[in-house]
């Protein structure tokens, strides 16, 4: 176990010991270790890398340190900056997990139910990745989650670059219980007045967050960007249905033109849940 004090030292330690595993909060890693599924020969602890534990501002963006804990992101000062990410952080598990688990860890684990991921997808966030030798490169979160641009050996997520939109944004999560639980579906929705866009991502229903791009454009086209931004209830409902049908599609019609198979009740319920979440999210963002 090494405990480097800077990001470059951490990257160097990883490069020196290719078998080493980086550990920040350990909330995902240690469950695998405790279950006997993983026996890392070496660990690189990121707990002393101070430079990735806070955030800074840069050209209308926030540069969020990968070592920010969920508990930190849930606090009011952060919520004033990026409300949807703060809401997702507050919804991510019990306090013990939120105190330890980090933003970078949530991205690196890339679990389908990772609560911050749909928010980052809707914000179109990019990662600032530290490479061996002191290099930095940028990777889009969506590309990383889709496996189009993976982290290479010895690389670490340093920061997450998130636009500051100064407009309403919403994160909603459906779980099986009142207490903290894995999302069965979640919706992140942000309004971007500068680009006159509505961006929406659905989490937990697929291996990575899904973006219903057509539905987003349709909603943006209905909004009176220069006046009251509210939409009538029918439009909100239609948006919900649009999003849900895009993300939970109907089964394909068989090649012989016969009856398409019916969606099982659990999938229909998932679609209904996504529709309700998307409708509520847009309604709250525009109210």
């Amino acid at each position, binding site marked *: 176990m090494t405990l480097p004090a800077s990001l470059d030292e951490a990257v160097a330690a990883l490069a020196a010991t290719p078998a080493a595993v980086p550990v920040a909060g350990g909330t995902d890693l240690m469950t695998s270790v405790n279950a006997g599924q993983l026996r890392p020969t070496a660990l690189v602890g990121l707990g002393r890398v101070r430079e990735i534990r806070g955030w800074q501002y840069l050209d209308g963006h926030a540069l969020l340190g990968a070592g920010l804990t969920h508990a930190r992101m849930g606090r009011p000062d952060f919520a004033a900056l990026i409300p949807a990410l703060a809401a997702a952080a507050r*919804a991510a598990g019990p306090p013990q997990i939120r105190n330890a688990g980090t933003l970078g860890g949530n991205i690196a684990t890339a679990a389908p139910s990772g609560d911050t991921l749909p928010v980052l997808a809707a914000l179109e966030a990019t990662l600032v990745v530290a490479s061996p030798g002191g290099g930095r490169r940028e990777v889009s979160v969506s590309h990383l989650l889709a496996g189009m641009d993976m982290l290479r050996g010895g690389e670490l997520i340093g920061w997450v670059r998130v636009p500051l939109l100064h407009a309403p944004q919403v994160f909603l999560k*459906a*779980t*099986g*219980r*009142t207490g903290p*639980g*894995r999302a069965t579906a979640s919706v992140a929705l942000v309004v971007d007045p500068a680009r006159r866009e509505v961006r929406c991502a659905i989490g937990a229903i697929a291996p990575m967050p899904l973006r219903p791009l057509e539905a987003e454009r349709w909603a943006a086209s209905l909004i009176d960007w220069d006046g009251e931004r509210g939409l009538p209830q029918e439009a909100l409902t239609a948006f919900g249905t649009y999003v849900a049908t895009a993300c939970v599609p109907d089964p394909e019609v068989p090649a012989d033109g016969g009856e398409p198979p019916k969606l099982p009740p659990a999938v229909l319920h998932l679609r209904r849940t996504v529709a309700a979440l998307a409708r509520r999210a847009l309604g709250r963002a525009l109210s």
Partner: protein
Amino acid sequence: MSHDTATGIPAQADAEAAPHGLGVSLPLAEARAKTEGTFPYAADLWAEGLLWAAVLRSPHAHARVVSIDTRQAAGMPGVHAIVTHEDVPGEGLHGRYGADRPVFASEVVRHHGEPLAAVAADHPDTARMAAAAIMVEYEVLPAQTDPEEAFTAEPLHPDGNVVRHIPLRHGDQEATGETVVEGVYRIGRQDPAPVGAEAGLAVPRPDGGVELYAASTDPHADRDRAAAVYGLDPERVKVVVTGVPGATADREDPGFLLPLGLLAMRTGCPVKLAATREESFLGHAHRHPTLLRYRHHADAEGRLVRVEAQILMDCGAYTDSSRESLAAAVAFACGPYVVPHATIDGWAVRTNNPPAGHVRGEGALQVCAAYEAQMDKLAKKLGLEPAEVRARNVLATGDVLPTGQTVTCPAPVAELLQAVQDFPLPALPKDTPEEEWLLPGGPEGAGEPGAVRRGVGYGLGMVHMLGAEGADEVSTATVRVQDGRATVICAAVETGQGFTTLARQIVQETLGIDEVAVAPVDTDQPPAGPSCHSRHTWVSAGAVERAAKMVRTQLLQPLAHQFGMSTELLQITDGKITSYDGVLSTTVTEAMDGKELWATAQCRPHPTEPLDGAGQGDAFVGLVFCAVRAVVDVDVEIGSVRVVELAVAQDVGRVLNPAQIAARIEAGLTQGLGAALTENLRAPQGVLRHPDLTGYALPTALDAPDIRIVRLVEERDVVAPFGAKAASAVPVVTAPAAVASAVRAASGRPVNRLPIRPQAAVAQS
């Protein structure tokens, strides 16, 4: 090796000075150690030079075992011994109620997680790796997981698939009512999910016997079972009970406890195993998943005429406690209602699903959810309030159960129902805008006030106390007094239910001695029976009371003789003996005069009889009743449910410890809440999916509702010691039915399945 070398036996803390005696809230003796994290549980066991065990379990729900090759695993460095079915010296089959479960599978595995072999090695990882290195060739067979097909499917066991069938026939079999309601109900697989996973230590004895240290809840039965498997006299096997980390079922899966002893005897070393959460889910028994079909006949006023029911319980591959669970399900199939005519068939059948067994309120919970759903349907059909249709049918003392047994104990069901009905409803959020409203889905959930509907529902439940159908329910206790302090020796296991606290209170009350210790339990003591069926408050507390009274007589007899009065005219308070007229006054210490007093007594309640071929018989010693009113908020668009409040009124006989009884009721309702909403151990094709506490959602503090104990009805049961009834099981049984009833009211949906899935709570538009 003596058990001095093994630590982990909880030392019982001495009694505090005050409060004391019956009817006061004496705190649990071990509460402080548990809170501070110093209480020794089974997983903390340690012995010098111990080896670690691992059990090889079947990955298949049903397979023929073609061959087991342990050679490679045995050759791994650090491995000391491997045992399989060939190494079992005694009985190869065991079982709590009829031996049908192999210690190790030999020719066929019948459920996911069935043990095949066990390894002892010098490190837990080595043991697990060696277990994984045992080569087992399987011929995978189709898993028979549908209990309805069990009747016609290939027998999974030589004695067939139907473990028990009870055809209960009561009254007129042709009777019909003007109003008929029908329903099919499914109850899921709840797991007891004890907070601490299973662990144990086996220590070989120089005489060739073995000592087993484990959090057993039935030490003598575990000893007898182990002795039969080891081919030893029971005297040469000793079970020592360690700290129990939570038990609402039979604790300590014999699937690892029996191999531990074999490994210890084979290696001559102490052998320990601490199960992972996954092994814990695989090893212990779950609640019986149950399919129920009901038809209720009622007259135009809503009074029940006849109930027809078919109850199908899935016991997994082995019998375990299924015969008893089925008896409870059939006997209480109509609930605490007067039903003159009944036709009830119950079956317990074998499948390749995970094993089912004793879990608190077994049998009674499943039928309660179904008969209460039927009462809701009846109310709807007749246009009556759900509480009203229940009130028109409630059972009372003197009424007859469908088993033909007359209810002789207090049965204040009407009073319980009235109490929860009269309790004010919690405020609606619109009436208390200043309070933050916790919506269904949780504090950061998707809940939207406009989509939330509130529902109120009722549940009436009943369970029996003590073993049924002729089980010899007996407990033995010893009380010893010396130097002004008393010791209770009784093999009743403290599982957190508060028995040791109650035993201390009884001795304090009877002998006026504040300082009472309860000895740790082992099988050198006389048996007290299992910690289940709400037994120990009755039989073991009864035995302690008798023993304490005998000591009292021994203490007071010489004084009484000296003063020419009977011992009844003397009383002991605060360590002083005084006569009724105040003439005599001495201290207990003086009266003892340095003597040591011992007394041992038994408590054996009146006998019961098995249910006969028509399900008739006086099968139960005592009954307990409870009424629950549930208030829920349902997000009717996405189906998330939050239970806002559970108001409960319970028949307790007599309150012996107010704080403990409140704690038992709160714990029971919360366990019932889990069965109602989230707890279902999924096993598609018989293979457990997500056997961990993320996949298996236990209620958290945010899920737990406000619990209002509205009334504790103290109508003493004259045949029970102190007149007290057990408190733990009946809230578990009743809560799911009440929650389902409330969700039905909020969503307008039938809610035929537990746990309630979100799609079942979505209002149809």
